[in-house]
């Protein structure tokens, strides 16, 4: 803390009417349709009773296929033409979300190693007073997932499995996010 330090503004819920302010045309598209290697990650956002959360938002942020954020400017997402790096999907009446993207490359772990391909995820909803943060990994990257420092730090396989998207047999992936319950998704403090 410095003399000039300011106290952060507290978070509040997005409330039930988030779609008014947070809807973007093509928000789900980290890359456009037809891009080589692109696929959908689809899943549902579920509450502690296993019921769908129809008033939620899933936002994703990721590196490009080379594992780069491509920048001197830390905010830049310019790596790769037509690649936004960022996606957002409002949940539907059945709690479903979908993100159309590319599999990111491996990103440095800052200590000489590489992380497994992953997306950082923020989840917002009515009833969530602050966003919650999770990650999405890929089941068909087991060789990279094994040594990933974030996955390795989790207590057990059950916890790791809540972060790993499964191939859907159609070239994409399926991944549910459970806010509560026996299979509660692992959430992170960043």
């Amino acid at each position, binding site marked *: 803390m410095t003399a000039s330090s*300011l106290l952060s503004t507290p*978070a509040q*819920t997005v409330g039930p009417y988030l779609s008014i302010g947070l809807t973007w045309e093509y928000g789900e598209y980290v890359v456009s349709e037809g891009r080589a290697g692109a696929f959908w990650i689809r899943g549902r956002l579920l509450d502690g009773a296993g019921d769908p959360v129809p008033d939620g938002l899933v936002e994703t942020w990721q590196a490009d296929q080379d594992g780069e954020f491509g920048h001197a400017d830390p905010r830049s997402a310019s790596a790769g033409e037509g690649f936004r790096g960022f996606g957002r999907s409002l949940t539907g009446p059945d709690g479903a979300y979908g993100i159309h993207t590319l599999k990111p490359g491996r990103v440095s772990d800052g200590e000489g190693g590489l*992380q497994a391909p992953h997306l950082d995820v923020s989840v917002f909803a009515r009833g969530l007073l602050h966003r919650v943060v999770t990650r999405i990994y890929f089941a068909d990257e087991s060789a990279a997932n094994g040594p990933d420092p974030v996955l390795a730090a989790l207590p057990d396989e059950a916890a790791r499995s809540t972060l790993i998207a499964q191939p859907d047999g159609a070239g994409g992936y399926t991944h549910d996010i459970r806010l509560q319950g026996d299979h509660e998704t692992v959430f992170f403090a960043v």
Partner: protein
Amino acid sequence: MSTSAAPPAGAALPSFRRDPDGTHPRLLSPDYVSTRLRAPLRAPIDLPQRLTELTGPVLGEGLVYEDDADLTRGYSQGPAGQRILVSGRLLDGDGRPIPRSLVEIWQANAAGRYRHDRDTWQAPLDPNFDGMGRTLTDDEGRYIFTTIKPGAYPWRNHHNAWRPAHIHFSVFGRSFTQRLVTQMYFPDDPLLAHDPIVSAVPAAARDRMIAAFSLEDTQPDWALAFSFDIVLRGRAATPFETEEAAP
């Protein structure tokens, strides 16, 4: 899949210190009933800030147009209600302005009704108001919206529950780590003391969500002005310093 073994250009990016306890609402705040089945109940796992957390999207191009900061425009006549200006700065916790950064807002109309399928309150929709605004902060981190003061409205959380008038704010800052959604309230609103969403925030931090009336910024014969600065997390003393050492 190609990989990147070279040291990333962003290895020297600043990391961000955690907000102290007493800043944000507790996720499980049972007086706000919707938290009971939606708040994660397990302790979050510490995630050291690496490249994915220290970078973030540059947003705005193709998303923000000049008129988007004026919620009273776009119709043949303006919306009903008290015209107001809401302005402020987007800052980090060290007082640095965050320039060219996306700010999104949404709100109810003057009668407290949202233009949304699920809002069934018996207050009139306003054909001249949709309640959505966007802008980019300027080089000094400043933003300004022209809108109308939203109304309070009842909700079903508990008997005789009313939300105080508020405007939802969504901001991104410079990195994934700084992402924040909050609500701005108005000064001297008697409903603030009775709202479980406000009360979920530790008492000492609640004032940071309340705008200040500004006579200085109020425009004669036009609009009342309110001032609301948004402060995002400041930088940790040294990049990758303490967070990496966390268990």
